[in-house]
């Protein structure tokens, strides 16, 4: 009668092999090390940290009750904010079409355009909307122009990247078939490629509009138009009840935006 050890090579069971265990410990140790390093070297006045809950509570106390006196102005500027987001998203989406076309490996005319397209997309995606806003406020001064441009420049990368990936993933067989009928490149794109990427195009555009709605609420904090300006004003004058009103208005706007966005995306697909 053979023992378990003889039959299976060992008579115990562990969930992970020794090697796996060592790797897991190493990873956990590494994470702990990183956290410890960050905790000990960060420039924080620990006295303030322990007082934080009280401070936060104090701040929220001062916001209550929210003050609706300036609600009309707030709503009007909120409407401006929505327009900034909508216009900027529309322009960006239109501009992202040619960029996506040249950034997709199967449609780009040559390697140089592929590289250029990818460069544009990466730059656009990696620079945050607020940073773009800083730049455009420096150039065009405070106002909605800076805000619209900031959102445009950031959105082109987002939409262009996803659109480019959609173009690369199309079924190539209809493309082959239409080339075989003697259609020009443009007509092949219009009939074989565009219909295939349409659903992604709309979904991504609507998604980006939703994100941009949120982004445009803060543009004003660096001077680029929208409700951020009023918010900054209220904060600077320590008008906390009005700050509360503005924040509530922003939440409501964002939630409405998400509802509309989800509804549209469901209808399209």
């Amino acid at each position, binding site marked *: 009668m053979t023992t378990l050890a003889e039959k299976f090579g060992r008579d115990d069971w562990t969930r992970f092999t020794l090697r796996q265990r060592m790797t897991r410990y190493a990873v956990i140790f590494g994470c702990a090390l990183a956290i410890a390093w960050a905790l000990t070297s960060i420039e924080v006045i620990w006295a303030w940290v322990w007082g934080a809950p009280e401070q936060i509570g104090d701040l929220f106390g001062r916001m209550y009750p929210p003050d609706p006196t300036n609600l009309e102005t707030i709503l009007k500027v909120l409407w401006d904010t929505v327009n900034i987001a909508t216009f900027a998203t529309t322009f960006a989406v239109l501009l992202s079409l040619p960029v996506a076309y040249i950034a997709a490996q199967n449609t780009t005319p040559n390697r140089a355009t592929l590289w250029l397209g990818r460069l544009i997309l990466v730059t656009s995606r990696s620079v945050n909307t607020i940073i773009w806003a800083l730049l455009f406020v420096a150039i065009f001064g405070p106002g909605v122009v800076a805000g619209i441009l900031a959102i445009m420049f950031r959105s082109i990368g987002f939409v262009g990247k996803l659109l480019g990936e959609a173009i690369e993933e199309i*079924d190539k*067989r*209809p493309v*082959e*078939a*239409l*080339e*075989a*009928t*003697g*259609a*020009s490149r*443009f*007509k*092949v794109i*219009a*009939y*074989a490629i565009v*219909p*295939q990427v*349409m659903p992604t195009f709309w979904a991504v555009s609507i998604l980006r509009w939703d994100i941009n709605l949120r982004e445009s609420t803060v543009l004003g904090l660096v001077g680029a138009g929208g409700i951020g300006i009023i918010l900054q004003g209220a904060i600077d004058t320590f008008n906390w009840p009005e700050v509360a009103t503005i924040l509530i208005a922003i939440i409501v706007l964002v939630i409405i935006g998400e509802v509309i966005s989800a509804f549209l995306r469901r209808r399209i697909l």
Partner: protein
Amino acid sequence: MLKISDLVKRYGSGDPVLKNLDLTIEGESVVSIIGSSGAGKSTLLRCINRLVEPTSGSINLNGTELTSLRGKNLRAARRKIGMVFQGFNLVDRLTVMENVQSGRLGYISTWAAVTRRYPKEDIRRAFELMERVGIAQYANTRADQLSGGERQRVGVVRALMQDPDILLADEPTASLDPKTSEQIMGLLRDLAGELKLPVLINIHNVTEAKEYTDRIVGMRYGRIIFDDVPAQLDQEAMDQIYAGSPHADRAKDGAAA
């Protein structure tokens, strides 16, 4: 008339896939090409409309030399060559009418194409052909909602809308069940007669080849080794076309050279 002379297709530096091929298709015959996988059937067909670039040789369709064309001239020549695909190759999200009209893209203006304002004669012809093959009721239906056999019929109508001088079919029935497969083969044969059109069909079902076509061309590893009426395709010829391995063949070639 389609005249192929000395056609060679080589990928990289390996063995050529098509070796000095000669083939002539005249008049309104239905010709099938049979052979095992790798024989070069698909490559041969795709060389005709330059979806694959021939390495050397000549392909002449009704007086036009196809191998040297480029740009606008190539597109003009492709208009006259209709192709039906194994995977149907339709644009799934477009309606059947749009798919069928995409066969006319080589003829209509860009504006008409983009706005879907097709010429009246094209619409009339489309409905005629769709009635003939039995899909007219699907004109407004999205292509991906049709069955396999129906989709292939859309593919056939698309090719015929080009008003081609020759119809190529690359394993048109390989993705279909046997009954639908026979329907499509019958359709191709009948249409060839009605429209006085030469048809060249890649097929791996020899029974269908024998029943629906007038002439069988057998290929083996890039060469044509059989070219005759179906009645002459006996067991010996079949063995020659289908038996053996690539290695054995190349060894024989090498020894003979």
